[in-house]
C-alpha cells in the first residue's frame, strides 16, 4: 500500500515520559508528535528526523474562549479546544486562529460552515475507541459518525489523534486507519487526516506564512 508512504503526525498526546514516547513514536513510523502542556526546554533527547511540537489546550468558559485563543494565536503553538456542548463549539469555531476542535459533541451545519470559513480542523479522538468498551464506545462512535458526515458535506479538514497518556496508548498509522474505518472513514481520508492536515497546520505556523496564498520564499 503506497498510501502509507507519507509523513505521519499525531497532534494530541499527553505524554508522561516524553523521551520514551518519542522513541516509540519514531518506531511506529511517525515524523512528529504534539505534546500538550509540556515544557520542551527540559533536557529532552529526540531521535533523528523526529520533532515534538508544543500544543496548548484551551479550557475556559464559552465566553472566555475567544480571548484565550487570541492570546495564544501568534505564539506558534498548536491550539486545541476540547469540544463539548454547543456553546463551547460555537465560540471555538467562530474565532480565527484556532487549529483543531477536538471531538465536538453537538455538531451541526451552522458550526460546520463557520469551521470551514475559519479553516478549523475537526479532530477525531481514537483514544476513546481504544480505551472504552460497550455502550460508551457506541456513543462515541455515533458522535464521530455525525461529525464525519458534516465534515464531508462542508469539506472540512479532518485530523486523527490518539490522545495517548502513555506509550501503551499510542498506535501505528495503519492501526489508526483501521480503527477509523469503524465509523466509516476511508483509508484515503485517514491518511490525509494523519499527514496532509498536520502538514497544513505546520505550514500555517511557520514564520514565513502571512496569509492564505501569501508566503515569503
Amino acid at each position, binding site marked *: 500500500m503506497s498510501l502509507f508512504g507519507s509523513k505521519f503526525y499525531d497532534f494530541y498526546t499527553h505524554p508522561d515520559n516524553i523521551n520514551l514516547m518519542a522513541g516509540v513514536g519514531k518506531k511506529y513510523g511517525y515524523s512528529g508528535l504534539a505534546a500538550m502542556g509540556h515544557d520542551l526546554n527540559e533536557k529532552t533527547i529526540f531521535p533523528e528526523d523526529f520533532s515534538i511540537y508544543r500544543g496548548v489546550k484551551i479550557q475556559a468558559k464559552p465566553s472566555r474562549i475567544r480571548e484565550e485563543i487570541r492570546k495564544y494565536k501568534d505564539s506558534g503553538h498548536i491550539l486545541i479546544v476540547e469540544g463539548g456542548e454547543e456553546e463551547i463549539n460555537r465560540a471555538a469555531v467562530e474565532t480565527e486562529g484556532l487549529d483543531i476542535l477536538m471531538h465536538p459533541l453537538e455538531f451541526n451545519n451552522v458550526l460546520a460552515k463557520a469551521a470551514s470559513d475559519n479553516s478549523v480542523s475537526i479532530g477525531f479522538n481514537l483514544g476513546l475507541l481504544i480505551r472504552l468498551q460497550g455502550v460508551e464506545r457506541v456513543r462515541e462512535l455515533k458522535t464521530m459518525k455525525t461529525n464525519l458526515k458534516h465534515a464531508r458535506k462542508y469539506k472540512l479538514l479532518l485530523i486523527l489523534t490518539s490522545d495517548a497518556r502513555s*506509550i501503551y496508548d499510542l*498506535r501505528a498509522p495503519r492501526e489508526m486507519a483501521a*480503527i477509523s474505518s469503524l465509523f466509516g472513514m476511508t483509508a484515503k481520508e485517514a491518511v490525509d487526516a494523519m499527514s496532509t492536515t498536520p502538514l497544513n497546520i505546520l505550514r500555517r505556523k511557520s514564520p514565513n506564512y502571512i496569509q492564505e496564498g501569501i508566503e515569503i520564499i
Partner: protein
Amino acid sequence: MKTIPTLRDKKRYLAFEVMSEKSINRQELVREILNSIISIYGDKGANEINPSLMSFDGKFGILRCEREKRVETRTGLGCINNIHGIRVSIIVLGISGTIKGATEKFIQQTLINKPEPEKK
C-alpha cells in the same frame, strides 16, 4: 484428506509485536484478542474473521485471519488496551501469505535490526 485448492480457506498471517508492562501468557492473549473482536464485530463477524493464534513467544506472535478481513483483524488488535489490568499495545509488523514468510520477513528482520538488550 486434503481439501482441493479452490475450496480451501483463503487466509493471511499477521506478524505482530506485543508491548506490555509485565509478561503475559498465551492463554490470556488469545482470550483478549477474541474478546476484542467479538466486542466490535459480534459473534457473526468473529466467525467471518476466523482468528486463530498460531504462535506466541511472549513478545512476537503470528495470528491467522481470513484474507478479506485483514483490516477488521487489525482493528481488533488495535483496540486492545489492557489485559487483566496490565497495560498492553499490539503493533502489526506485516502481513504475509505463509507462516514462513511472516516469520522470515517481519519477525527475524526486526530482531536483526534491533538486537534485544539481554543484560540482567
